[in-house]
């Protein structure tokens, strides 16, 4: 008998079939072969079978951001198929097919795939139309594709795609591939409900945490609580007494690689068990001796010191925009401010997990990762097996927000499966995901401004995270600016880094949008009008870095969102008692978002009543999902503004679970109204652009309400009292 049920025998009555325990869940993305069918795969996104099954193979990861729905809509529209008829699979990681474009981050999925996907679908459609034209002996121009069929204009004649394959599969692509006109779209631009919505409502969307393979064991890992520490020894005698615990083994870490998405598995002790709970309980019963290493005495205050020192010695200018340096020699007065934001953790609702089956010459993986292609590459490096021997199934995940771009949690499952020679599921407990994870870095950003004798700003100077020579700096304003060399911690990271929804745009946005507000106040101007004027003084800012930053920054687009949000939120109009407004404007990649927060401060307590946001994300493929992403971004940012921080003491994270890293809850959620700028530009991202702007909008409103500038998040009650 398999060891999964060696100790505990389970009897089930009322259900037929005793093989329940050993039956595997059918992995999402697994397509069974049906030999007698013609099965045509004209490209890597589409597969059409002679029984008229049309399968859309989604290259991008789905983690709740809705990209898979948007892509399916694009596919259905351009191909001429019914959205509800598309069978949906997620493509396993494959650099050969999709390059690193498959790895989903930076709110880039829809933007990067819009054009290639349309072309792939349109090519397929044109081949099918050509096939029908040949079959019927009619000119192509008389035919069109709709609802998975080729139809003749002005007649009842039609033929399903599936019946055209015999001809179609031997045709080459026509040289002219017309793309559809916007007016011919049936889905794009509509708030379509996805197939996923129904699966979720039924509790049936399959995540990797739900996977169960025959012979699979469950693992939980106690990772070293301090980054860069190591394992000395452990006593597992109590852990082994826990019913269901099979084995306890030391877990070696992996080196953090130059590209920090890879490696950085913390050393630890793995408990192998017959179920997740036994693994978790076993972990709690371990007695471990660690060497806590070089970070053992450190906390954020050490980082702050390091940053301050580097700032003082940082005279290298990486970019002098519009003669920022000259503006400082003309200045009569200097205004300075610094903005501090803590470590944060993604806390995806689905804890990190991965299932790996390493059978010696082949590795099969199930994991909701944002980077299936990168994962495959890394696992190939780690196991020294060729990429072709690695399959990364990529089911939807319960939230990614950047964290699932990193491969370490998959590395763990592969290492254990290699050692145990059987399928292993590693599940992180919530405590693991809060206390021994990878983190959004602690940052301090330093801004200063040269003012003339009338307190009007002449130029800005900045030391912070967005300053790499030649790097991406989304700066929209017409004010001269000195970017100094990027500030880094001298002694490396106290905690390993993870991407966290909007990544470094968050500290950058916090500083910039608060400081601009401070400048407006000094200059005696309305903060919204002040920004509009600065945007008018600006030109297109060159920032294009293909393919990851899709376009240059157009200040006029940002201006439009700002004007619109002013109207929609009633900026400058009288408000209820105690309610004050704060504004922010932010350009993120090729999207633009302005926000106004309505806030009251009573006895030092900040209450956000309402947030109004306007986003320009190019063509909104699915407006309901665009709004959903903006709402989610605002709620995400409010958790960080009002509640959460990861704090470090003696190198270890103090927070443990949701009781002390408590996300915004429904009762605390303000009213949010989102407006989308009508645009025919190609679609751009929506998952992150609204995150950086919410903290400054709230802080600026707090200033309007109290006259106090808060320059540190989360907002502390004490700072507003007295």
């Amino acid at each position, binding site marked *: 008998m398999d060891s999964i049920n060696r100790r505990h025998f*389970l*009897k*089930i*009555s*009322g259900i037929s079939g005793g093989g*329940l*325990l050993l039956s595997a*869940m059918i992995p999402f993305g697994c397509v069974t072969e049906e030999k007698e069918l013609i099965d045509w795969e004209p490209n890597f996104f589409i597969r059409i079978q002679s029984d008229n099954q049309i399968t859309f193979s989604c290259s991008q990861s789905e*983690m*709740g*951001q809705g990209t898979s729905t948007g892509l399916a809509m694009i596919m259905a529209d351009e191909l001429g198929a019914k959205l509800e008829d598309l069978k949906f699979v997620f493509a396993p990681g494959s650099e050969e097919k999709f390059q690193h474009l498959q790895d989903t981050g930076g709110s880039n999925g829809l933007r990067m795939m819009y054009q290639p996907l349309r072309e792939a679908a349109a090519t397929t459609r044109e081949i099918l139309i050509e096939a029908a034209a040949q079959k019927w002996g009619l000119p192509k121009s008389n035919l069109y594709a709709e609802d998975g069929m080729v139809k003749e204009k002005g007649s009842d004649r039609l033929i399903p795609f599936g019946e055209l394959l015999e001809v179609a599969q031997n045709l080459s692509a026509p040289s002219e591939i017309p793309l559809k006109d916007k007016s011919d779209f049936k889905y794009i631009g509509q708030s379509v*409900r996805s197939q*996923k*919505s*129904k699966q*979720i*409502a*039924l*509790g049936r*969307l*399959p995540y990797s*945490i*739900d996977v*169960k393979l025959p012979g699979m064991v*469950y693992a939980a890992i106690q990772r070293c609580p301090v980054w860069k520490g190591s394992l000395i020894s452990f006593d597992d005698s109590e852990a082994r007494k826990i*019913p*269901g615990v099979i084995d306890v083994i030391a877990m070696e870490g992996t080196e953090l690689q130059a590209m920090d998405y890879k490696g950085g598995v913390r050393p630890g002790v793995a408990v192998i068990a017959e*179920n*997740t*709970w036994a693994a*978790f309980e076993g972990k709690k019963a371990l007695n471990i001796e660690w060497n806590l290493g070089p970070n053992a005495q450190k906390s954020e205050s050490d980082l702050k010191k390091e940053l301050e020192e580097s700032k003082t010695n940082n005279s290298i200018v990486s970019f002098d925009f519009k003669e920022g340096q000259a503006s400082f020699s003309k200045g009569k007065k200097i205004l300075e401010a610094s903005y501090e934001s803590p470590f944060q953790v993604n806390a*995806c*609702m*689905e*804890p990190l997990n991965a299932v790996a089956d390493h059978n010696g010459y082949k590795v099969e993986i199930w994991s909701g990762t944002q980077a299936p292609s990168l994962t495959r590459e890394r696992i190939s490096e780690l196991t020294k097996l060729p990429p072709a021997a690695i399959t990364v199934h990529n089911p*939807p*995940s*319960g*939230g990614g*927000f950047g964290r699932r771009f990193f491969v370490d949690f998959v590395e763990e499952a592969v290492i254990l499966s290699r050692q145990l020679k059987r399928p292993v599921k590693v599940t992180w*407990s*919530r405590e693991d995901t809060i206390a021994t994870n990878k983190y959004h870095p602690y940052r301090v950003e330093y801004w200063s401004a040269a003012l003339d004798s009338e307190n009007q700003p002449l130029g800005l100077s900045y030391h912070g995270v967005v300053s790499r020579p030649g790097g991406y700096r989304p700066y929209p304003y017409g004010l001269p600016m000195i970017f100094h060399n990027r500030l880094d911690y001298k002694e490396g990271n106290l905690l390993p880094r993870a991407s966290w929804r909007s990544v470094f745009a968050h500290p950058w946005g916090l500083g910039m949008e608060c400081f601009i507000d401070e400048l407006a106040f000094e200059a005696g101007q309305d903060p919204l009008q002040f920004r509009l004027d600065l945007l008018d003084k600006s030109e297109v800012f060159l920032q294009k870095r293909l393919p990851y930053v899709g376009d240059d920054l157009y200040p006029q687009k940002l201006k439009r969102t700002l004007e619109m949000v002013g109207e929609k939120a009633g900026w400058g109009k009288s408000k209820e008692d105690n309610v004050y407004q704060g504004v922010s404007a932010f350009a993120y990649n090729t999207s633009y978002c302005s926000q106004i927060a309505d806030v009251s401060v009573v006895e030092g307590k900040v209450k956000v009543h309402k947030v109004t946001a306007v986003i320009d994300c190019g063509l909104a493929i699915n407006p*309901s999902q665009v709004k*959903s*992403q903006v*709402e*989610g*971004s605002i*709620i*995400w940012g409010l958790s960080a503004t009002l509640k959460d921080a990861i704090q470090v003491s003696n190198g270890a994270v103090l927070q443990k*679970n*949701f*009781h002390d890293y*408590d*996300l*915004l*809850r*429904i*009762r605390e*959620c303000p009213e949010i109204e989102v407006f989308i700028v009508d645009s025919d530009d190609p679609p751009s991202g929506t998952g992150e652009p609204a995150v950086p702007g919410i903290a400054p909008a709230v802080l600026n409103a707090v200033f309007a309400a109290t006259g106090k500038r808060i320059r540190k998040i989360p907002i502390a009650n004490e700072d507003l009292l007295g």
Partner: protein
Amino acid sequence: MAILSINGKRYELDLPDNMPLLWVLRDYLKLTGTKYGCGIGQCGACTIHLEGEPMRSCTLPISALEGKKITTIEHYADKKVLHPVQKAWIEEDVAQCGYCQSGQIMGAIALLDKKGRPNDEDIYNAMSGHLCRCGTYLRIKKAIKTAAQNG
């Protein structure tokens, strides 16, 4: 040996008494619609109904459940017609990643069973124990009201 009644079926389980129901559902009974989020009753992802009351299955040892009626999201998934709450969830396009939503839906169904027309305060009281990292709260509130109207 614990004998449990889940979604109208009887299960005889030879598992440790203190094992939380959540892990029995997920790792042994293939009822994976119920999710693990925190294990300490803080997030609501594991919500089931015990005798019609919403409970966190991560903190319910199976020894305490004998003879009690347990209902999971699968009970509502296997029916021919969707529950008004499920319908409203689709109509209002609530879910993002979806991971918290089985728990949210179970919380909402239990609320509407007690209060046909909940106001905001009723919704906050019933749903504040449910975290959603994707930030779907406004749509949850709206969907509960829609379900109340249609249900």
